[in-house]
Each structure stands twice: as structure tokens, then as C-alpha cells.
């Protein structure tokens, strides 16, 4: 599976791991990963350790997730970003919407 999710009851936190190219091909899997939860979790962590590339439709997917999690009230962090991925996120200034590390 290229998109894996893990729910921590203790922290009420959902972790979604994306591997390989994060592009439109992952659209359905990515949505399923957070829509499967009956109610939005307190926070979401997107782990991009295994992601090699990220395109603009992936940025769109992150925005969809943010909307689902309550927009401005959402708490979403994007972790383990590679230099290339970080560059793409930086050009779009997504650090203003997500906690990126």
C-alpha cells in the first residue's frame, strides 16, 4: 500500500504515510485514509518519509484534508519531508497553513 494510515486513540491523532510519488494517482487512497474516521481527529500527521515527489494535485489534496479537519481550526503537520518536497511546499508557502518539518 502506498498510502497507510494509523490512528492513535491515546492522542486522538491520525498518521498518514505516503510512499512514492504523491500525485493524482493517490487521490482516492489519500481521501479514504482520513474519511474512514467517523469524526475528524484532533490532529493529523502526514509522514512523507517515503515520498519522492509531490505535485500540485498533492497540494490540492492537502487542502482538502485541511478543509475536512475544520480549515483554520485544523492541526496538521507534515513531517519527514525531503529537500525536494520541502522546496515545493516552500514555493507555494504552504508553511503558512501546515506545520512542516
Amino acid at each position, binding site marked *: 500500500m502506498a498510502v497507510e494510515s494509523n490512528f492513535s486513540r491515546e492522542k486522538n491523532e491520525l498518521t498518514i504515510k505516503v510512499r512514492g510519488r504523491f500525485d493524482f494517482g493517490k487521490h482516492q487512497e489519500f481521501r479514504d485514509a482520513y474519511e474512514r474516521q467517523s469524526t475528524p481527529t484532533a490532529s493529523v500527521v502526514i509522514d512523507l518519509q517515503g515520498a519522492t515527489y509531490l505535485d*500540485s*494535485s498533492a*497540494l*490540492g*489534496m492537502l*487542502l*482538502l484534508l485541511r*478543509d475536512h479537519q475544520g480549515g*483554520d481550526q485544523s492541526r496538521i503537520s507534515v513531517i519527514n519531508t525531503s529537500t*525536494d518536497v520541502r522546496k515545493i511546499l516552500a*514555493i*507555494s*508557502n*504552504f508553511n*503558512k*497553513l501546515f506545520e512542516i518539518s
Partner: protein
Amino acid sequence: MPAKEALSVLIAEDGAVDRLLLAQIVRKQGHRVFTVENGEQAVKLFVEQRPQLVLMDALMPVMDGFEAARQIKALAGETLVPIIFLTSLNEEEALVRCLEAGGDDFMAKPYSAIILGARIRAMDRLRRLQATVLEQRDQITRHHNHLLNEQRVAKAVFDKVTHSGCLNAPNIRYLQSPYALFNGDLLLAAFTPSGNMHVLLGDFTGHGLPAAVGAMPLAEVFYGMTAKGYGLVEILREMNAKLKRILPVDMFCCALLLNLSFQRQTVEVWSGGMPDGYRLSAEGEMLSCLSSCHLPLGILCAEHFDDSTETLPLQEGERLFLLSDGVADTCNEQDQLFGVDRLGEVLTGNRDVERLFDEVHQALARFGGRPRDDISLLDIRMLEPQCQLAPAVVYSDGLHGAPLEWSLRFELRDQSLKSLNPVPYLLQLLQEIHGLRAVTGALHSVLSELYSNALEHGVLGLDSRLKCDAQGFAQYYHERNRRLSGKVEGCVSIALRVEPHAAGGRLMIEVRDSGAGFDVERVLSSPVKEQAFSGRGLNLVRRLSRDARWLDGGRRACVEFAWEVQA
């Protein structure tokens, strides 16, 4: 046992006994049968009756089964007409010949009714599969052509919309892959009433028609508001709000907006999500980057949207080079990206501006990149301050009648100074006066100049001497934004008075501010240095109007325009 679906079957067999026997077997299975005695008759019957399946004896007089099979296959074209060879030949070589001549299967004599029935059914399955594949292929082709046609129409409409601007101005060079639009790239340029140039390079997420659909309202806002004299900030706010309202959450538009002022030799920039643009010297040397500092358009709601722009000096002959992400994102076969560094090398290596776009393309080809059809390149050159590029504004309204006599006073206080730019409103009012339409550009410049002087030097207390060099220039605008975002106290009032008379009329503009004023005599008498960034405002106002005076220690500007009634 009758077959589920009756087929028409051609039997070509020279032996009368075998022919009858076969015909009987096949008929019993529920199929319609044609019989012939040699290959030539078989071909002839095929042309007339188009049977769906052929049982073909290999060795026959006049024309043998091999030749007949070749001709029937050629006549059948893409439709699969299965040919089963009937043969007593046992040598491998002969069986191979059957298949090579176009046969699909073969059966050895003597015939078994059960096996023959099974083979006919198997061949029928293949025949149907082929028919389905062909039908679907044709359907896809039809859909594809339909789609291409829709794209052509949409592109033609869109080209009309985008090219109503000034992309053909002599200081703009651009290159857009023909179908870049359908990958979401957007390129717009238009003159403001005062002769500034607004440029937008945008890139929608997503592909195809959805991206093009988003581009239409964006173009509308860009052209409409630019023509009415709105500044980048107002245009940005409107575009962002509109896109936020109409686009689905996961769609947005990366965009880079420019406002080139030839008179001031400056460029105002806002970039959200676009790759770095480059500010180049006349010789092509890289001076600085225009980097993205904002989120793309259509993501944030109005209250969180950041409309702060950056203003940079740009001297005559200096250029801006902008591009969409298609260039740096081009991939080679090893899945490497072309990247910003390779692009930088092309820029530094360039000697002839005319060849820059070609050189970018050549570098991409050398890199072995898979060609992408969403590459947009744009090169804009700063012209001399006196250039007259902007065409006369054409009005589409049907207003008539002489101007009435009227006056108004418009006062902005404290916090409202932060958010409202009164110039477009006033300009629109003044455009109702036919006699002033010819000087709309000058009016826009003068009103903008007087208002920004009152706000920046008067209320905010900024010293124009800061703008003595490129660095001070940046500092000035930085400081301006800082003070505007803090607590603003003071007021600017603008009064307009229109007085018609028999032969025309005059307009009096009075702009007052609550600031400390300035030494009018000294500023007006200091020599106009063409290269200086500061002190231009007053000279510009004097040049464009019939009369301009500064009273009350520089706190009150009185400017007059006049017009004559045309016969």
C-alpha cells in the same frame, strides 16, 4: 445441438462427399451454410454474402485454399472472419502454411461433429471479442475527436479573451506551448489608464477544461479592474475572493502579478506559489530574484489574504524573466528534474536576448527531458519614461450630455487609510465627463501621485529622500508597509470641483493631508535628475496638468485640468 447464435458459414471443399457431410454437420448445429467448390468461388461468394466464418479445404482446383484465405482476409479488413482449414495434410510444414496464409485454426480429416462444433464456437468467441474491441476503439476515437474539438473551441474563445490585452506590446516577448492553457497556464497583460502595464502569469492546479474554466473569471477581473484604474492590491483581493468562491477546495491558482510603471521606472510584484522570476540587467546579468512570498490565489479567505506587494526599481533596458513550473519540473529518463540550477546556467550563459527562449528549449532537449506541453516563458523589458505605449481607452457606454456642475469632498481618516484606495472611484466619476476622457491617463497618474504623496509623506511621515538608491528604495516601501500595518492616525481629504462653461470646462482637484508638510520652494526648485527615484511626483503632476500649486506649507495640493468642447 443448435448454437446460441446462428452464424453464416462458408464451406469451400472440392470433394462433393465431404462438402455434403460438412454442410450437414454445420446446418444441424443451427448455422446458415453456403457451399462452394474452389478458392475462386469462395472469394466471389465472400464478396457477395459476407459469411461470418469460413471452413476452407487447403488443396482445391482453380485456386487453392491458401490463396483464397489471403484474399478473404484482405477483403475482411479489420473485421475478424475466422478461417478454419480443413486438411488431410499432416506434415508440420503444410500446417504452418495454413496459419501463415491467414488461417486461424485447422482441422484434420476425418471430421468429428463434436470437435467441429466446439471449434466453431471458440472462433465465434474470438470474432465477437474482436468486434467489441473495434467498436470500443471507434467509440474512443469519436469521443477523443469530440473532446479535441471542444478544446479547439474553448481555446479560440479563450485566445480572444486573453489577447484583448497587450501581450503584443513591443517590450513583451513570450512563448507558450500551444496547449499550455489546458494545463492551466495563463498569461495576461493590460495597460492601466495611466499607461502602467499590468502583467499576470498564472498556473492553475489540475489540468484540462477545469483549469481553463477558472481562468475565465480571473481574466475578466484582471482586464476589468486594470482598465478602471485599480491597483495590484485591489485586483489581487478581488481575484482571490472570486477564485475562493468558485473553485473547489483542492483547486487554486499560483500567480505572479506585476505592475510596471514606466514613468517611475519601477515594478511592483506579488507572487504566490510561482517559481522564482528573475530581474536581469540590460546585459543579461542576474540582479535579483522575484520569489514567491504568498500562498496561491483561491486558498485563503479575504480576511487572511496577504496582499502586500514589493516594489523594485527597474531601469530602462532592464528586464524581468518569468516562467511556469513546466521548465524546472521537466524530467529526464532517470527521473531527475531539470531544476533551477540548470535554468540559472542557461540565463547566465545567454548573450543574445532574442535567443534566450531557444536556449532554454535546447537545454531541455540536451537534458533529455520528456517534452512537456505546459511551458510558458515571458520576458518583459522596461522602457524609457516617456514612452507612449498605451492606446487610447475605448469606452463602451453610451453616455451623452454635457457635464453638470458638481463638487464633492472625500475624506479618509485613520484606519480607513489602510484599506481603501479612493483613486479608482474618483476616476470612474470623472470618466463620466466626456471632455476629460482624453486625459484619463493623466488624471489617473495625477490622482495616484497626489494621494500617495498625501498618505506616504503626509500621514505616514515617510521621507522621500530615502528613495535615493535601489536599496533605500526597497527600505522605503518596506517602511511604508510597516507603518500602514500599525496604528494609522491622520486624514487625507480629496475635493473635486467641476465647472462647465460655454467652450468647455475645468476640473479642480484639491488634496489635503494632516501631515507636517514640506518645503515647497526647495523641492520644486531642485533640479530634476532623470535617474533619481525621489521627487518625481511633483514634476509629473506639473507636467500633466494645466496648473499645479502647493499651499499651506505643502499640506494642500491644488491642481487644475481643463477641456474644450469639441465641435
